[in-house]
């Protein structure tokens, strides 16, 4: 363009075309008026600076975390200084709008993304720096002992945030600061801890909404990851904390469910027919899922277990009744599953989810509905009495104390001997069975007696046997006494006639010196 205008005779000063650095070469507008050589130098310098700034920030975050676990006081000091120190970096940071991050995901080859990648990548300088620092610190920080999945989750989290660019960095920083902050609050009660976490969710979500203009779907996605990361890190200290009586409740519920082992599917009016193989298969799966809940760390994963369990119950009901399950069918079925499964640490898990799950999920979502039903099931089991099973109080009492078992009501006819022996009323199936058992026991004891007799005779035989053998041996020895014949000892070489002709054996010669 510029050459063309020159040719048309419009006057362009020669100095305008030269490199702005004054090196004497011609410059180019595309290189901001610099010549190719000067431009490359300039560009490299700016870029280097940017990368260094990024690294500086990354190292800072690294140190922050390191310090956090090494000592709480040091960490606090650092986190106080952190907002001010990080301020200048916002200028250099890439300007990728948060709402477009999904678009950017597909566009990873741009320079900005690679910079961000370098910044987060575990194989970059950040990682090596981490190792050298670790070597230097005399007391290794707690985070180094973190289990494999904690590390995995941290890595996944960082991977996820990479795609978010600037908001990603911001989120990362906030989450770490929050975890540090939480580690200094271990003495607080469970409710206060819960409040801290919920406030953090709320603030972060608000911030993402307003500051980075995220759509509600993308914010939700980010919040899920944040929850996963934070709760995996905090799990040990906030699950069933010592400040609460969660553990006591767990034990109480466990014992309660054990005491209710006799409750049948009919008493709960559950519309599942376990005779159908598909149904019983679903029942088993549902039981497995609700038990599995305890093994998960993230509240959302726990919720997913409950949802899976519920889906299996729905399938079982659908197969039995051939219509969609209403809550009238579902809740009794869930109660039955919980009674069958006796899920470990049920109360702790419920409390944990209530306290630390992202509230939007718990309030309105499908997972929230199933969770609510599980809470209902737990509450029902706790309060369960004769009336709620349509039993008379006496019956309930007898079942609870183990004096009777409802299961045998169905199998009355199976005991033909009932009542015949000691004159008990044959109508009572339990006594009938007791009787039957007694009979069997007496039969067993008589058989055992005969067994003992046989064993004793066998023992006597065994003792007698070696004596008999001994006697027989002695008899034979007496009969055929051992006679030792004297024998002429013959030399080995006696038969060899040519011995004399052999040369004398060699004698060792001694050489002097």
């Amino acid at each position, binding site marked *: 363009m510029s050459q063309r205008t020159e040719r048309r005779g419009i006057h362009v000063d020669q100095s305008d075309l030269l490199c702005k650095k004054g090196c004497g070469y011609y410059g180019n507008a595309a290189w901001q008026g610099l010549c190719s050589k000067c431009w490359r130098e300039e560009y490299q310098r700016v870029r280097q600076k940017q990368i260094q700034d990024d690294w500086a920030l990354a190292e800072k975050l690294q140190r922050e975390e390191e310090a956090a676990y090494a000592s709480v006081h040091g960490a606090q000091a650092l986190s106080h200084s952190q907002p001010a120190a990080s301020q200048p970096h916002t200028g250099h940071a890439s300007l990728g709008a948060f709402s477009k991050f999904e678009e950017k995901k597909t566009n990873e080859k741009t320079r900005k993304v690679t910079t961000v990648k370098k910044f987060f990548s575990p194989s970059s300088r950040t990682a090596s720096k981490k190792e050298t620092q670790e070597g230097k610190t005399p007391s290794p920080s707690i985070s180094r002992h973190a289990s494999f999945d904690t590390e995995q989750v941290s890595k996944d989290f960082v991977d996820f945030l990479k795609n978010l660019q600037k908001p990603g960095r911001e989120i990362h920083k906030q989450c770490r600061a929050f975890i540090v902050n939480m580690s200094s609050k271990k003495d607080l009660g469970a409710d206060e801890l819960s409040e801290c976490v919920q406030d953090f969710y709320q603030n972060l979500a*608000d911030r993402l909404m307003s500051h980075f203009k995220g759509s509600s779907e993308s914010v939700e996605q980010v919040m899920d990851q944040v929850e996963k990361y934070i709760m995996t890190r905090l799990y040990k200290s906030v699950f069933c904390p010592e400040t609460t009586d969660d553990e006591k409740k767990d034990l109480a519920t466990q014992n309660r469910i054990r005491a209710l082992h006799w409750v049948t599917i009919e008493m709960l009016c559950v519309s599942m027919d376990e005779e159908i193989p598909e149904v019983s298969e679903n029942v088993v799966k549902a039981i497995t899922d609700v038990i599995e809940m305890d093994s998960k760390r993230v509240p959302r994963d726990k919720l997913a277990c409950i949802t899976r369990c519920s889906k299996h119950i729905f399938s079982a009901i659908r197969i039995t009744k051939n219509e969609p399950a209403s809550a*009238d069918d579902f809740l009794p079925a869930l109660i039955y599953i919980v009674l069958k499964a006796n899920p470990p640490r049920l109360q702790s898990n419920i409390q944990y989810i209530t306290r630390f799950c992202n509230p*939007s999920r718990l*309030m309105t979502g*499908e997972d929230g509905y199933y969770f609510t039903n599980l809470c209902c099931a737990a509450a029902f089991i706790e309060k369960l009495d004769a009336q709620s099973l349509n039993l008379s109080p006496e019956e309930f009492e007898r079942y609870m104390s183990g004096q009777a078992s409802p299961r045998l009501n169905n199998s009355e006819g199976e005991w033909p001997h009932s009542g015949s022996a000691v004159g008990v009323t044959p109508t009572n199936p339990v006594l009938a069975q007791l009787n039957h058992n007694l009979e069997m026991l007496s039969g067993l004891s008589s058989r055992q007696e005969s067994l003992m007799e046989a064993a004793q005779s066998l023992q006597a035989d065994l003792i007698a046997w070696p004596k008999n053998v001994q006697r027989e041996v002695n008899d034979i020895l007496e009969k055929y006494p051992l006679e030792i014949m004297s024998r002429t000892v013959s030399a080995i070489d006696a038969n060899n006639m040519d011995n004399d002709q052999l040369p004398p054996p060699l004698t060792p010669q001694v050489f002097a010196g």
Partner: protein
Amino acid sequence: MAAGGAGGNSGSGNRTYSFKVVLLGEGCVGKTSLVLRYCENKFNDKHITTLQASFLTKKLNITGKRVNLAIWDTAGQERFHALGPIYYRDSNGAILVYDITDEDSFQKVKNWVKELRKMLGNEICLCIVGNKIDLDKDRHVSVEEAESYAESVGAKHYHTSAKLNKGIEELFLDLCKRMMETAQAEERLKGNGASQSASSRRGVQIVDDEPQATPAGGCCSSG
């Protein structure tokens, strides 16, 4: 809870409301049929695709506002009555269903209403629904009695038939509009009385609330 009402976007135009509605009523009053008719438009159909009818969602667009409705069915058996509060915690609306041929089921509704008002106050929108109007010849609950009772407790009364698909669409639409009004009123209140827990970031939201007040008025007048 304040958060229960509307976890929505800031920005007045494209805000989404999320409402939780609980379905209460005795065993065979037709709660499930009602909600299946509404969400799937099917009645006693062998071809109902949904695996379950206890948690259903519906997306609506009411006067340009998006509404996500989550309908929570509850177990209606008497022995689960005590579990009610766990279900209806944080809900924005309640649909109390009775069978017009069954006087007892109406008594149950009265019990629920008392309980709900006691636990949740006036924040919850109540709908009392007399179902099975196709069986009007066997009616045991008089229209006047039901309607005057509903009025006395600040609830609205509807007559529906899941079998004939009558009155159901109106019931849910009306309920949604009322819940939106409640949510908006609550927001205005929050905006004026600036809650103590509000951080500086929440302050931004309060600014966002102002343009929202205008469409709120429009909605009220239209509804």
